[in-house]
């Protein structure tokens, strides 16, 4: 199979205006991925599926990745003049990268029996701009996977035939797989809470009677009751 550079060059030639980058994944696994911009993602995906040499007709997996706002520190050696002598000095630059959500697709070919080719799409941000084009018209197997990404990460897919929650129940709000997801305090009923579960439970339950011998559990304010 062709290398990522060759695929990138041919895809850029086939889809004019597409911006494709290679995200390297250094390590023993060594699986680089192609980062595709959102406007041309459908066209590039169609090229990947229909090109006779590649024929990536099977989308085996689509997952989401959540990147929070992060600061990347880079240290480079720079030649500087210090006290009149030219030396190699470490210069640290900090780059603030705002957070985004990604969708990563693993593509295989059933006809040529090669793969995987991995493509990524990034959203603009983690809030209002969390929209991506849906690749379901191209690979039908992405339908449920994109529903899962929508359910767990909150990424809207435009042109998805049936976008609704798949794993969580329909009335659930919030997106569990995000890195800043915090589960509700009173999610599971714990009969004998202690330690940090007890701290959280204290905010939700009525004060227990003294006869119990149990620790005083008081609500935060008088208005809060068991069902409040």
């Amino acid at each position: 199979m062709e290398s990522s550079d060759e695929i990138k060059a041919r895809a850029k030639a086939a889809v004019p205006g597409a911006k494709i980058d290679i995200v390297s994944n250094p390590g023993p696994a060594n699986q680089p991925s192609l980062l595709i911009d959102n406007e041309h993602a459908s066209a590039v995906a169609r090229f990947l599926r229909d090109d006779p040499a590649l024929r990536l007709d099977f989308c085996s997996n689509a997952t989401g990745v959540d990147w929070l706002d992060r600061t990347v520190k880079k240290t480079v050696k720079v030649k500087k003049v210090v006290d009149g002598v030219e030396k190699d000095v470490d210069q640290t630059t900090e780059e603030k990268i705002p957070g985004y959500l990604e969708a990563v697709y693993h593509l295989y070919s059933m006809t040529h029996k090669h793969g995987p080719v991995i493509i990524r799409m990034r959203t603009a941000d983690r809030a209002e701009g969390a929209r991506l084009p849906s690749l379901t018209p191209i690979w039908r197997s992405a339908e449920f996977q994109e529903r899962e990404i929508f359910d767990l990460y909150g990424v809207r897919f435009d042109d998805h035939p049936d976008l609704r929650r798949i794993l969580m129940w329909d009335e659930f709000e919030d997106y569990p797989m995000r890195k800043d997801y915090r589960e509700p305090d009173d999610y599971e009923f714990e009969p004998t809470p202690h330690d940090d579960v007890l701290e959280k439970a204290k905010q939700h339950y009525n004060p227990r009677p003294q006869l119990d011998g149990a620790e005083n559990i008081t609500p935060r304010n008088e208005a809060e009751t068991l069902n409040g």
Partner: protein
Amino acid sequence: MSEQILETVERPPTRMTSRLDGELMEVSMGPQHPSTHGVFRMNVALEGEIVRKLKPVFGYLHRNHEKIGENTSYLGSMPYTDRLDYFCSMTNNWAYALSVEKLAGIEVPERAEYLRVILAELTRLQNHASLIGFLLSDMGAWGTPLMYAFREREKILDLFESLSGSRMMWSANCPLSSPSMPVSPVRCCAHVA
């Protein structure tokens, strides 16, 4: 809760039939139905006994292993893979161990490879034994053939218990080493056969 919650999507109605579909009866074959094996729910629109429309609803077996795996070590996430498909726990362990070894570039000793194959095949045997049983009970045989199949499966589960201490969910497949084998696997397979 995340700072901004996006507005909920306009959902298609969960009812599939309208007033014009007079003949269709909409039934929810829930996760408790014996043939769904406790895994998913189907909203079916029936005309007599013929299924006209079907909409599957997922999520009943979703335990969010992905999220749990974010907070556990590589080895600590191994028992969760057992329970993904509880009938072939060794195979799930093996797949997870393979991926960890690929990521870390670990080379597995040859004895471990052989042991993994033997034990995975035994797992597959007990999986297919219960498959026969469930197939017959789904076809209407009311559960007795299922118990016959499970009786055969018990022989393999006894072997698993002597190997690891646990009948089904044994996380024997550490990413680094072979499962420990107090008895020779060849003799055990002869006993099962």
